[in-house]
């Protein structure tokens, strides 16, 4: 009896295994050429609710006007990680799509493990007319986002988001404060105190998701650096000073909130917190739900210092291997980076356009920005954008997690900023060795 059962489970196991093997084989289709047009694949991560419709629209419009190229858009679930895994499988099968979206945190991984061609190289080889397209249309600091740690230009930034300060104008007015919001972090602290005194509401909330994006903006704008030459350096004098301000607002002044992301944004929407520092990607949620006069202003600076804002989002990279496909890939990318397409992309997703001239152009976002004042803050602060630091190597994510753990300790008042940051920096450097 038992042996029969064993046999069956073995057979069923074998069946399952072969079934899995078959299914992955059968999904592969030949995608070389369709008639005279070159067929290329564009891999993206935008689900229906996250700009997927805009992707379809753009691809359809491109296919209608292009005489040489037919693009097939392919959605990859589970965001940039999912796309990376699928790309791995495809590469193992000796194939590759032509254009892919690569999230910033996978920039180094992508450039170390996959074969890609820098867009400028394709342009230099085949499109002499476009040789200055990238230089003319993109800010240098924005292009730097898509450079790997060796300084190679891997791709071109496509989806960008930056942190902005959302303010509850009605509440600021009630407290007798400047309705245009604070300009500096010191002012943020002052404003919060006044709000707490005058209205009894909380002054400030800084987003606390499972990453250190906003923390980086706070620290680096004060002159600290998360990483210098592959070593963590955030526990510098400037870094500690910056973190101290946030910790003081929470633990000493008791004017700022220490809450998970959703609850924090909720409290802002409810009108219980006057200012919230979070990503521009939350704009539509906030705009649609608030019942007061809301505005978004540029990220606060530190007095006398320049802001440094990490960018969230992704870039486009060319993974096509044959020359013909590479040519088509650039043709498609150039279309995506046109003013009109960029404007559509921003409207459909809420990302900030990475190239210049989109904001002011009549066929770009001019009308849209007049209606959506809140986007302006994010568009205007593009010159302060810097790469989002990812700790290098296999232990990078673990290092990121250590910094998150410290955030809870510091903001929960369990350790001092000085002690917390210094010991974490040491631990991280131990890991990165």
């Amino acid at each position, binding site marked *: 009896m038992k042996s*029969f*059962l064993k046999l*069956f*489970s073995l057979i*069923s*196991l074998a*069946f*399952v295994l072969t079934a899995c093997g078959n299914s992955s084989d059968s999904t592969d289709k030949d995608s070389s050429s369709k008639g005279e047009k070159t067929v290329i694949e564009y891999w993206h991560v935008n689900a229906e609710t996250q700009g997927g419709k805009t992707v379809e629209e753009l691809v359809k419009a491109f296919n209608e006007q292009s005489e040489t190229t037919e693009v097939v858009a392919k959605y990859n679930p589970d965001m940039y*990680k999912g796309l*990376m*895994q699928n790309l*791995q499988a495809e590469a*193992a099968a000796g194939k590759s799509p032509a254009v892919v979206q690569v999230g910033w945190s996978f920039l180094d*991984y992508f450039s170390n*493990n996959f074969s890609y061609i820098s867009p400028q190289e394709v342009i230099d080889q085949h499109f002499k007319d476009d040789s200055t397209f990238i230089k003319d249309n993109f800010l240098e600091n924005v292009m730097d986002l898509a450079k790997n740690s060796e300084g190679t230009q891997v791709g071109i930034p496509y989806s960008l988001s930056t942190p902005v300060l959302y303010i509850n104008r009605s509440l600021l007015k009630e407290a007798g404060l400047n309705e245009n919001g604070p300009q500096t972090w010191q002012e943020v602290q002052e404003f919060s105190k006044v709000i707490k005194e005058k209205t009894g509401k*909380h002054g400030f909330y800084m987003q606390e998701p*499972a990453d250190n994006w906003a923390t980086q903006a706070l620290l680096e704008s004060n002159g600290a650096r998360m990483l210098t030459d592959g070593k963590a350096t955030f526990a510098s004098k400037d870094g500690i000073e910056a973190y101290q301000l946030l910790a003081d607002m929470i633990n000493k002044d008791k004017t700022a*909130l*220490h*809450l*998970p992301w*959703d*609850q924090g944004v*909720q*409290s802002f929407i*409810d*009108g*219980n*917190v006057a200012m919230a520092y979070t990503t521009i990607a939350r704009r539509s949620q906030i705009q649609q739900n608030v019942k007061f006069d809301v505005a978004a202003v540029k990220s606060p600076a530190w007095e006398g210092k320049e802001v440094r804002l990490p960018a969230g989002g992704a870039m486009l990279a060319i993974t096509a291997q044959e020359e013909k496909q590479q040519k088509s890939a650039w043709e498609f990318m150039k279309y995506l980076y046109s003013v009109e397409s960029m404007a559509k992309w921003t409207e459909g997703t809420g990302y900030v356009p990475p190239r210049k001239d989109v904001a002011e152009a009549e066929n770009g976002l001019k009308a849209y920005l007049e209606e959506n004042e809140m986007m302006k803050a994010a568009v205007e602060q593009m010159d302060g954008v810097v790469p989002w630091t990812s700790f290098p190597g*296999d232990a990078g*994510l*673990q290092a990121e*997690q250590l910094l*998150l*753990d410290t955030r*809870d*300790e510091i*903001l*929960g008042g369990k350790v001092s900023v000085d002690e917390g940051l210094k010991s974490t920096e040491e631990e991280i450097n131990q890991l990165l060795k």
Partner: protein
Amino acid sequence: MHAVKATNKRMSKEQWLAYGLLIPTLLIFALFMFWPFVYTIYLSFFDWNMVKPTKEFVGFQNYIDVLSDPNTYKVFGNTFLYIVLLLIINCSIPYVFAFILDLVLKRYKNFYKGAMFLPSVISLVVGSILFTWILNPVSGPVAIILDWFGVEMPIWSKMDGWVIVVLSLITSWKVFGYNFIVLYASINGISREIIEAAKLDRVPLWKIFFHIVLPMSGATGIYVLIITIVQGLQYVFTPIKVITQGGPNYASANAIYHAYHEAFVLYRTGHSAALSILTMAIFITLLILEFKFVERGVHYEN
């Protein structure tokens, strides 16, 4: 000779039919239980990040890492705290409720039954999002009501201990109803004559509960006890994922969430697999202990 052969043939035919009918279940089990389990054991000996094409064999290093990580012990501590809380909220209290509803209350029984069961049919993700709002310590309705009485709601989502209590409460919102109905059915099935006799003899209610109801519904009680522990821990995953992501500093992570966190947030699959296997070992030990010491004293009516 002929007759014997015929029966043999029929037997094997019947057997084949039986196994044939078992195949779909076996397939599903193999696909969703045995294979992942075997694969997890396999992964626990490798260093891998889910994307790399090569897995590096590291022997028992993952187990050594997990066992020397102080967070592991914190997480297991949390796990047991969750178990204790869930046993109180989702096993003891529904037991008492079911008893009261069946034997003490006279009116509105159906209303209570429905009201208590209702939350079980609502998705826990929806519930968690709802409770994030209801229990928002700054602007949620509970905070506002507490404010009227001059009580300031603690920022539970960022405080050790509190966070586990609240997440257990949110989970119980989902699990309570089902456990309650199962226990109610069992208590309802106890012969009325015994209870009426006890009542005539003026046996106090607490004695009826402990000396009659508890032993006679013990079989169901054990079932509820075990699913509370096992399922409760899985259900807790949802509010942890939605509300705290294991924070602050792992104070709300349980073993199952932590395994998820290691694998799908940090991409340390080896670590995660080792942790899962250790968790599994602990639970198997618990189950063996349960069968040895608790099950023996349980009375099965049928």
